[in-house]
């Protein structure tokens, strides 16, 4: 594949699916440095995956799988920003935070997602983004019935937490 074609596809995917990528980044990385680092890793894997994309699946499914895969591995490997030392290469950020008013309910939801273990976090993102059991099974590689059990537990947990939150704060 020519570099120019690959770059065009990359730009189109990143532009069109940036909300998806941002969600994964925010669910798995909690400081701005780490979010930049994870976004960079996800972007590199997306770039590398382009020649392998055979259009057997939807682009969103493909990108979610890559992003989740990188995120699951990234939390395992990432140590570099936790000790306060910084790589010079990472000083120039790819992502700039938008100065929008903070949506407190969305913030709360992300905090609840952060508390889940990393596999449940993946399922929660897919669930909230409206993926079907079949699509989730395809992305994660586990059975629909297994997905169903995990989703039941996650839904129950999140609605219970929201009731507690409403009781205390709203």
């Amino acid at each position, binding site marked *: 594949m020519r570099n120019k074609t690959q*770059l065009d596809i*990359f*730009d189109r995917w*990143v532009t069109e699916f*940036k*909300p998806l990528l*941002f*969600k994964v980044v*925010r669910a798995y990385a909690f400081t701005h440095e780490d*979010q930049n680092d994870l976004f*960079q890793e996800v*972007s*590199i894997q997306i*770039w*590398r*995956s382009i020649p*392998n*994309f*055979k259009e*057997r699946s939807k682009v969103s499914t493909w990108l979610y*799988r*890559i992003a*989740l895969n990188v995120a*699951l*591995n990234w939390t*395992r490997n990432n140590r570099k920003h936790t000790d306060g030392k910084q790589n010079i*290469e990472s000083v*120039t*950020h*790819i*992502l*700039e*935070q*938008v100065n*929008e008013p903070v*949506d407190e309910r*969305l913030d709360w*939801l992300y905090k609840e997602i952060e508390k889940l*273990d*990393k*596999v449940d976090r*993946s399922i929660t993102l897919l669930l*909230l*983004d409206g993926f079907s059991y079949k699509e989730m099974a*395809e*992305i*994660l*590689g*586990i059975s629909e*019935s*297994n997905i169903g*059990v*995990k989703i*039941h*537990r996650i839904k129950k947990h*999140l*609605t219970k937490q*929201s*009731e507690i939150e*409403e009781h205390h704060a709203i």
Partner: protein
Amino acid sequence: MQFNDLQKIWDSQNSKPMYVIREEVLHEKVLAKARKAGRTANSTEWILILTGLIAAGILVYFDFVKDEGNTFSFISVILFSLITVYGIINRFLRKNKTESFDRSVLGDLEHAISVSEYQVSLSKGMLYGFWPAVFIISLLSLIMSDKPLWYSLIFGILFIGASFLSRWEHRCYINRRDELRQLKEKLTEAPELK
């Protein structure tokens, strides 16, 4: 709050992204890192392969052309050839790994586990089989060649350093394999409905 309400909160972020992407920085970093990763892996593998080949070649020259070889140097030729084979296998594993994009998260995990299991067994072989063999053979070769004692001492120190590095590498591979296994266990476990 019902789950549908949570989904509405979640969807609200689609219309107002939380970040702006600096495209020029993204292009620069992605292209640079993609190139750099390939180059680093390539040169590391080639250094290992060529080191084994050159060392084996030099020994073959002295053993067969100059006819100065002994049993131990013949065995060393085999050991250095094994380093070359090790480098080639590592290169193959890396190339193979990059072709695993059309799988599920579980598929990628299983692939990563099989690669890491292979790396653990290779590094175990290096640590407990290869390095001790190289040490004994080279030490006997040094003793037989009537070199001063400090030659053997320096060689011993170098061997201890290499063993530490090899042990550290082996530990890294074991940790990686165990973490991947735990992740797979977590992904495939089916909790009871309560």
